[in-house]
């Protein structure tokens, strides 16, 4: 009789606890659905605070991470998931949290961290095979870091994994041609405007040539008319200033050009990579 009594008490306690946790979850989920992400975060944290059940804690952790993602607080999501990965979840749950963390790290622009987290997965979860989504994220992170040769290998692995034909659609067959900043500086040092021309800015090249020539012309004519101080103070001063400015400008222009080319290439590649994992 006494055993029955204790069993009833335990059952009732269990029912109430589950009902309470379910209630908080329902509230949190409805807040999330209605776009009240901060309130939803608090509700999910309440589950983490009150509940010891791994399944409930895992769902709450994932819920909070989703809220942070919706609010574009990707870096905060990475940090938060890091604290959750420390706790004693089952291996399958930990894998899901790590998976989510990798996505958040990529969205936060932490490309080195993304790659590091992806590389750790086979050691931490040797039984789980690579997913196409994570393979795609790896390709995209490598692209952003301009490690295109490694990205090409990862892209081929992804294409094979999803049984896609890469012979016609391989974007890495033609990598963006990046120009040398040093070369631009050298060209502008010895030939005024040449660095700007190399960077694909003929207008700026012409302007650089005109202003430097004007300084030089003024210096020479002043010197020939025996205005030595004017030749030095204005002619040489103007020429020197515009020359040094031209060299620096050429470097900046090449840098901007390279960024633009890399960005264009990455945008095109991203589309193709996402097509593969659709």
């Amino acid at each position, binding site marked *: 009789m006494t055993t029955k009594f204790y069993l009833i008490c335990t059952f009732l306690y269990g029912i109430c606890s589950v009902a309470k946790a379910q209630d908080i979850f329902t509230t949190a989920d409805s807040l999330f659905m209605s776009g009240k992400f901060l309130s939803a975060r608090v509700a999910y944290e309440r589950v983490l605070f009150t509940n010891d059940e791994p399944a409930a804690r895992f769902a709450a952790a994932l819920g909070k991470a989703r809220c942070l993602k919706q609010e574009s607080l990707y870096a905060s999501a990475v940090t938060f998931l890091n604290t959750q990965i420390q706790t004693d979840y089952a291996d399958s749950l930990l894998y899901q949290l790590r998976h989510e963390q990798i996505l958040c790290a990529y969205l936060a622009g932490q490309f080195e961290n993304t790659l590091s987290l992806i590389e750790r997965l086979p050691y931490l979860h040797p039984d789980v095979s690579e997913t196409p989504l994570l393979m795609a994220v790896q390709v995209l992170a490598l692209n952003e870091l301009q490690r295109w040769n490694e990205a090409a290998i990862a892209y081929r692995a992804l294409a094979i994994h999803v049984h896609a034909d890469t012979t016609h659609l391989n974007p890495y067959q033609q990598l963006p041609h990046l120009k040398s900043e040093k070369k631009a500086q050298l060209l502008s040092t010895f030939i005024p405007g040449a660095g700007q021309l190399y960077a694909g800015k003929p207008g700026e090249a012409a302007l650089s040539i005109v202003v430097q020539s004007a300084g030089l012309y003024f210096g020479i004519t002043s010197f020939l008319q025996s205005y030595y*101080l004017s030749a030095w103070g204005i002619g040489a001063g103007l020429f020197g200033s515009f020359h040094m400015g031209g060299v620096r400008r050429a470097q900046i222009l090449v840098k901007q050009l390279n960024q633009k080319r890399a960005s264009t290439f990455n945008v095109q590649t991203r589309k193709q990579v996402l097509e593969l994992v659709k």
Partner: protein
Amino acid sequence: MTNFHYWLLLVTIEFLTIPALCQTTSFSQEWKFAHYLSDKEATDEATFVLQAFDKQSLTDSQRDSVAYLTGWLAYREKLLSEASDHLLAVSPSSPFYLKSRYFGAYCLAFQRQYDSTNAIMQHLPVPDSTLLELRAFEQGGLALLQRQYERYDTLRQHFSYSSYALSAEEKRMDAYRLGLQSRKHRSPVLAGLLSAAIPGLGKVYAGKSKQGIAAFLPVLTMGLLAWEGYRKDGPASLRFLGFGSLFTVFYVGNIWGSTLAVKVRRDEFNRGYDNKILFDMHIPLRNLLSR
């Protein structure tokens, strides 16, 4: 099943279900939750929980607890004005009074409200000898911020230089005192006169040697160009008038700049020391009270 068992069962049911159904959570639970969030550095969430309290329905001690945690979160987010407002609102009966008072006073000092800080620091609670020394240290720091050296000398008599949490900062505070007092007074008028005699010399005198050299070169160049125009083309020539005007602008500007340089250098010096003093006032607070 005996009557006792039935009774116990009913009590258990009541105990478990009523709170769940009514969805009421006590202040203590909510406050613990907010504290847990604060410890996790989930500041937005903790602030949200604290803001949800109905302030009217709280007791005085509950209001104190909320004010303390709200102030602490604001302090951690470096919202010092908000932090001092909340921390200094905590009443003496609260267990958080001591910590709130010290940190609230520090937040005020950081906002350069020295008179208010001084008034609060004079009445900071000192339950033991360590905190007595801490109070003297904080007041000493404030005296240095106000450049009241005699007051600092009086307060530093309470420094033991042996407390683990204070000794290094006490020694550094003494060094700041010496550094502040050894600063040489620079006159803006003298800086201007020096730059009038030799362009750029006033800035060197103010302690900005590189700026002095940088100011000397354009003034010299303009002067030479004006002289060349005068010598070759005469005083009525466009070359002389143009370069002469430019020279005058650069020359006068340099004199004006030299007088300002003295003030700029003095402000930089003071700001540098103020930051060091405030930083060192902060370390013992964190070590002794940040629990």
